[in-house]
């Protein structure tokens, strides 16, 4: 869940009133966001100081609210978005109408795309914010939003990369190209640098840059690098790495060109929409965005072009189209469980930025989903918004009418009974991790990995998470080691699953419920463990089975289990199958785990006893 940091006072100013912290938390809760943390500007900078310098000048005591928002609400990733949503929610503002400036087709600035870009980043969308007034606060907000979007929907710039430029410092028409020639032929002065770099040098240069080095892999292995040029071959940007210094925006910028290069066109449009809807409030013509046309030399031209109208066959962005959804009134109100009249529904929808009207003829509500609400995919999303606006706490709580009977899984009932028995025998139950290191699962218990037993993790953070356990032994031995100073005897047990590879299952692996117990004392405790194993076999005995069925069989020397002491180990046999074994733990194993006293251990396949 993304967290957005906003200055409290700026936020309250935008909301038009002050709130106490409790009042504000209340408001957030109602809307569906959460005030996660309250800190100060100073704190924030202090924490980030060891990273590169932020763009904030001077440490201040300004109170910062950290607000957590839902991961699919791109319209809430900046102060402007949150303030606007809340103002509309409390009825202080009407839903803005975002529009594209009407200018004749020939005057629309164009960006021409080259063929080779389809190999690396096929799509680009652009828009212009005209007559913007930046100040310190909203400028930072502008930069921060790009960062947030890059982290979220852009998947760290791999899907979409945003570039923002001072339109007055460059000249259109623009071109988005991938050099068919080598990256060495791209030269420009990148942002924040003084001297000019070749593109390949630049990538090397950024290898040591904490912030930028993680984006290098996106293009470094390609033979073509994508570049955006203006009419005079000034480099605007080398997406997704860095913009050019020439077109850099500053506090004095009045006209902003926003370009988003991407591998996913849908997301690029959402990103562009988010940028312009959020910041067009600072344009001299509020909420109006100037369009840019994208011209592709190939089939890409027809993937998203306008099907009809003045711009038929062309790709004009931003696509601020409002999505229209026709939803029967009942489909909105019944799933909530309240009966609301259509006027009420429309009023509630307005609070959530969803303009709606009634089609009286057939009680269908027509909802106009603005470009800021790309999260609305289905009528149930509209229903949800109505419920939020109504207030979840006001919805009458009813009970489902269906009659069902409860029950537990037989395996769990059985294993709970066994757990009860073992604890009554004086053993302490423990719960250990399923994930362990390769060494703990194999080498430390003297077993070899045959490659067809254990599930292996592909991306462990540390060695603690390398494999999924195939026995409960390591977990118990580790637990014992960490509690080795306990009074003797130490008797612990665990009933839990191990995981084994299995070619007959759809996923290729299965769980197996095991029971294991460990007894540690100054003497080995073999009789203890034997006694426990005997007790378990007795309690699971079916009524028709003879009371003293022979189920212990000494480990055949040829098949002796390496983790046990030789000649002090036995198999447990049930219905002709070996379902468990027990014995004295081998001293080498004890040594590897750092246990100074002798131990006995038993492990049984509980599922086989069912």
């Amino acid at each position, binding site marked *: 869940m993304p967290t957005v940091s906003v200055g409290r006072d700026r936020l309250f100013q935008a909301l038009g009133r002050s709130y106490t912290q409790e009042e504000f938390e209340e408001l957030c809760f109602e809307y569906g966001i959460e005030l996660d943390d309250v800190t100060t500007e100073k704190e924030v900078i202090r924490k980030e100081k060891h990273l590169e310098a932020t763009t904030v000048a001077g440490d201040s005591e300004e109170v910062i609210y950290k607000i957590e928002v839902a991961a699919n609400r791109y319209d809430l990733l900046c102060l402007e978005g949150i303030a606007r949503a809340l103002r509309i929610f409390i009825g202080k503002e009407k839903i803005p109408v975002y529009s594209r400036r009407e200018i004749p087709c020939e005057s629309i600035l164009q960006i021409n795309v080259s063929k080779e870009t389809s190999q690396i980043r096929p799509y680009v969308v652009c828009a212009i914010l005209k007559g913007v007034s930046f100040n310190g606060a909203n400028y930072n907000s502008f930069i921060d939003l790009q960062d947030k979007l890059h982290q979220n929907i852009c998947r760290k710039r791999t899907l979409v990369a945003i570039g923002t430029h001072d339109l007055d410092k460059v000249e259109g028409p623009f071109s988005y190209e991938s050099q068919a020639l080598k990256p060495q032929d791209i030269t420009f002065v990148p942002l924040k640098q003084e001297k000019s770099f070749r593109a390949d040098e630049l990538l090397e240069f950024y290898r040591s840059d904490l912030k930028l080095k993680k984006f290098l892999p996106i293009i470094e292995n390609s033979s073509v690098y994508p570049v955006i040029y203006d009419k005079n071959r000034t480099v605007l940007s080398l997406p997704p790495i860095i913009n050019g210094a020439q077109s850099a925006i500053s506090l004095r910028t009045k006209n902003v060109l926003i370009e988003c290069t991407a591998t996913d066109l849908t997301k690029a449009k959402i990103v562009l929409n988010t940028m312009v809807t959020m910041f067009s409030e600072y344009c001299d013509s509020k909420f109006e965005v100037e369009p840019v046309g994208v011209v592709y030399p190939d089939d890409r031209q027809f993937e998203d072009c306008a099907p009809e109208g003045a711009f038929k066959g062309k790709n004009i962005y931003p696509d601020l189209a409002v999505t229209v959804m026709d939803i029967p009134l009942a489909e909105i109100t019944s799933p909530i*469980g309240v009966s609301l009249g259509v006027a009420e529904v429309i009023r509630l929808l307005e609070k959530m930025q969803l303009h709606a009207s009634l089609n009286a003829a057939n009680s269908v509500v027509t909802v106009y989903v603005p470009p800021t609400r790309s999260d609305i995919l289905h009528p149930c999303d509209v229903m949800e918004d109505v419920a939020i606006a109504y207030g979840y706490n006001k919805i009458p709580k009813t009970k489902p009418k269906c009659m069902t009977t*409860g029950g537990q899984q037989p395996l769990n009932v059985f294993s709970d009974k066994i757990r009860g028995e073992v604890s009554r025998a004086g053993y302490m139950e423990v719960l250990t991790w399923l994930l362990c290191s390769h060494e703990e699962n194999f080498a430390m218990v003297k077993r070899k990995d045959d490659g067809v037993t254990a599930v292996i993790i592909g991306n462990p953070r540390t060695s603690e998470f390398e494999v999924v356990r195939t026995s409960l032994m390591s977990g118990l031995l580790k637990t014992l080691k960490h509690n080795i100073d306990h009074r003797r005897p130490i008797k612990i047990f665990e009933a839990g699953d191990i995981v084994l590879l299995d070619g007959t299952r759809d996923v290729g692996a299965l769980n197996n419920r095991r029971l294991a117990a460990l007894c540690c004392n100054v003497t080995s405790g073999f009789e203890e463990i034997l006694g426990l194993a005997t007790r378990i076999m007795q309690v699971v005995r079916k009524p028709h089975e003879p009371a003293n069925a022979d189920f212990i069989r000494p480990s055949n020397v040829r098949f002796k289990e390496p983790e046990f002491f030789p000649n002090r180990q036995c198999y447990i046999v049930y219905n002709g199958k070996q379902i468990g074994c027990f014995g004295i733990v081998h001293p080498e194993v004890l040594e590897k785990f750092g246990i100074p006293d002798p131990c006995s251990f038993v492990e049984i396949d509980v599922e086989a006893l069912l």
Partner: protein
Amino acid sequence: MAEESILGFLQTNEAISDSQQFAASVGIDHSELESVIKSLRGFEIVDAQEFQQDQWFLKDEGKTYAREGSPEVQLFKAVPPEGIAKEELQRKVTPSVFKLGSSWAVKKKWVEIGRQGVSRKVEHVEDKIQVFLQQIENGKVVDEKDLAELKSRKLIEYKPLKGYTLRRGPKYVSKRKKAATDLTREHLLRGDWRDLEFKEYNLSAQVQPIQIGYLQPLLKVRDAIQRIFLQMGFEEMPTNNYVESSFWNFDALFQPQQHPARDSHDTFFLKVPSSTRELPEDYVDKVKHVHESGDYGSMGYRYKWKREEADKNLLRTHTTAVSARMLYKLAQQKSFNPKRYYSIDRVFRNEAVDRTHLAEFHQIEGLICDRGLTLGDLLGVLEDFFARLGMLYFPTKFFTF
């Protein structure tokens, strides 16, 4: 025996003024007497006043000489009137006697050691050292000047001597009854428990903990929550499959393929087995279609859905993967019956472990499936559930599923 002698003596006498002397007189080691005195004192049978006297004691070396004679005298005795060769003399006595004895004997001018050998200078000598040592051993006083040599040769040391003055105590008895500690089978059989005195128990002493078994606290909580579900008519889902495919864990739950949660830094993907072997193909087609172009009223995500992504195996990040499987199974049935499902089981997230995050934890999940269910019903069920746990509050949060 020591106890008898003390108690016996006190029966007819007022007091034992010096326990050291008493010990010597009855021939008992004082340390043995001392432990008896302490025990009797503990039971208030005797009253013991401690005193301390400092006096001279023999050190180990001194005790040896008291017994065998001083080394110089021993050496002297080993030298015959006619004299003796050094090597022969060395063979006759122990090395320490030779070393110490010869140096002292020479100092006292009793012998002469030259190149010809060792010879007597006087006719005969008196072993004063031995005499004095023995006197001290026997507790007799020795003159200061005589003590001088003994002191300088470190044969004696000045130590405090502890002793007791004993009198009859408030609970004095001439013969102590042996107090029994525990009531045993023999006592019952013999019937002598009536006559025996039983020792006082110190009931405020810390007791030896008994050996008991325990159930794990987290599992006890799981049990309590499970009971709530069962009381509300929920059926447990079979969740004993930790390995899951991305399809059931993400795709079937409408989580888009480029969603950050599917990142390798949030999910444990598997090296072995890396891909799932089998998926229900007709269902896969439907899921793919909805992701790519939407359906059933949804606009979908409009991206290119990849089968390889869905095939990737992982350790499940939520038990909702099992819920998805259950719903699919339910949908395959001929006729529909409403169902309530629950599960409480382990899930895995590839997170950095810190104060509030673990890589493995348990998740509680509940599911009700019926026609005409409303949000109000959900809130009602949650209210019931949490009320049984003792909590009542509702945030407006949702997760995109």
